[in-house]
């Protein structure tokens, strides 16, 4: 099973790595990181924070972009080009295909994240800004986890609809996922029991992606304790399994 998943993962990694969109996105991220030097130089006394803030944000946007836009093409492209006709009849379980696709694209995200993080650390080193390395790595680990959830969402939608609609739906979930607090405020302000019930169900089913946002904390020198890291890790694993099972059910039902 592991060999089959790895075979699909390596092929997905190879395929996404040849995507020009990926390299264009990476160049944009690197330009933003370099631009942070200029922004830092014009901000009075806040050079280090500006460089860290800009750099971490650029890496985050890069990860989310890859997860949503390249992820949205993954399954759809295989169905559209009919390359799946050569893969599906092989001794492969549908969940192995989902796992392989997710691992392959996650490996792509990790690789470009590593490259852009290296660029950010180089900038910080040249600027003589020290002490942010570990918190930055922690923040990037959080956003990498978020991008894995978005990859699974993209895979789920890309098996159901066109790449454009899949990207739209995943972006919608991404935005909702970062509005959980707003949803909670609406629930608190609602009087109707029915509406409250519906919104509460939505609150628990929809992803709470704000859990993966510690960018502000690290800029201001604070970071989460071990307990909250463990809770976020548990949330990530549970939600990833939930999305994986949904994506598996989608591909299981699919006919070609």
């Amino acid at each position, binding site marked *: 099973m592991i060999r089959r998943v790895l075979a699909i993962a390596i092929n997905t990694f190879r*395929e996404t790595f040849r995507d020009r969109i990926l390299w264009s996105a990476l160049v944009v991220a690197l330009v933003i990181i370099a631009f942070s030097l200029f922004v830092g130089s014009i901000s009075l006394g806040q050079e280090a924070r500006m460089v860290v803030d800009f750099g971490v944000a650029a890496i985050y946007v890069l990860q989310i972009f890859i997860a949503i836009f390249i992820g949205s093409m993954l399954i759809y492209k295989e169905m559209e080009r009919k390359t799946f006709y050569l893969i599906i009849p*092989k001794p*492969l379980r549908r969940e192995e295909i989902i796992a392989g696709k997710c691992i392959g694209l996650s490996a792509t995200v990790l690789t470009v994240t590593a490259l852009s993080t290296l660029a950010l650390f180089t900038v910080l080193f040249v600027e003589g800004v020290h002490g942010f390395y570990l918190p930055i790595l922690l923040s990037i680990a959080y956003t990498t986890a978020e991008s894995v959830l978005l990859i699974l969402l993209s895979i789920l939608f890309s098996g159901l609809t066109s790449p454009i609609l899949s990207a739209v739906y995943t972006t919608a979930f991404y935005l909702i996922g970062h509005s959980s607090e707003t949803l909670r405020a609406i629930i608190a302000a609602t009087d109707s029991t029915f509406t409250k019930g519906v919104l509460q169900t939505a609150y628990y089913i929809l992803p709470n992606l704000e859990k993966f946002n510690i960018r502000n904390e690290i800029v201001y020198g604070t970071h989460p304790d071990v307990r909250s890291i463990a809770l976020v890790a548990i949330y990530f694993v549970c939600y990833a399994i939930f999305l994986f099972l949904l994506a598996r059910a989608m591909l299981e039902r699919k*006919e070609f």
Partner: protein
Amino acid sequence: MESIVMKGLTKEYDTASGPVAAVRDLSLAIPSGNVFGFLGPNGSGKTTTMKMLVGLARPTKGEISILGGSPSDIEVRKQFGFMPESPAFYLYLTGREFLKLIADIFDLAEKERRISEVLDEVELSHSADRQIRTYSKGMLQRLGLAQALLNDPKVLFLDEPLDGLDPLGRSDIKRIFLRMKEKRITIFFNSHILADVSEICDLVGIIDQGSLVAFDTPSRLTKGSSDLETAFVDMIRKKRANRT
């Protein structure tokens, strides 16, 4: 012993005007080691039948047995090969890299040796290290056949393997078929190129509008007709006239 058995196989698709049957109540049994040609006009249900046989589509009704098991069974899938109509590949890979991917999925022992053997078998060794995007139609068909043969299958499903090939390409692919036939591999192939079918097949099935019209040896089917093509056209016309 039969390698492929279909009993009452039906496939319906839901449309706005209600369910439409692509395949109706199809029952067939192909003995092991036979080459079976499945013939029919365009849209007759050949490809739908093959998709159900290899697990790309699910039957609405009926049963399929391949080597005594279900096509969805991983152990059964290890024993058959499938080449779709006009196979589509990952164009950025080389032929050899693509076969390596398939060998990894099958988790084959001695992958490199087997890949070289299959490449020799389909006469593609000279182009194996070129990107697939540079391949001609004939080379793509050969690579399609190579990936179907990689696991040394007992049953081979080929959807229009001769389609779009020039006479030389068809002759090469037919030669490969005959080698497979010598190895006693059960071959189930769809085609509408009838001259080739009568040369290669032990058994022929004719399908029209989703229903089986005839199932026999090529010699019996052509009895009283000049060739298989004439017999095929007569049978389809007669069947359609009876329906109306």
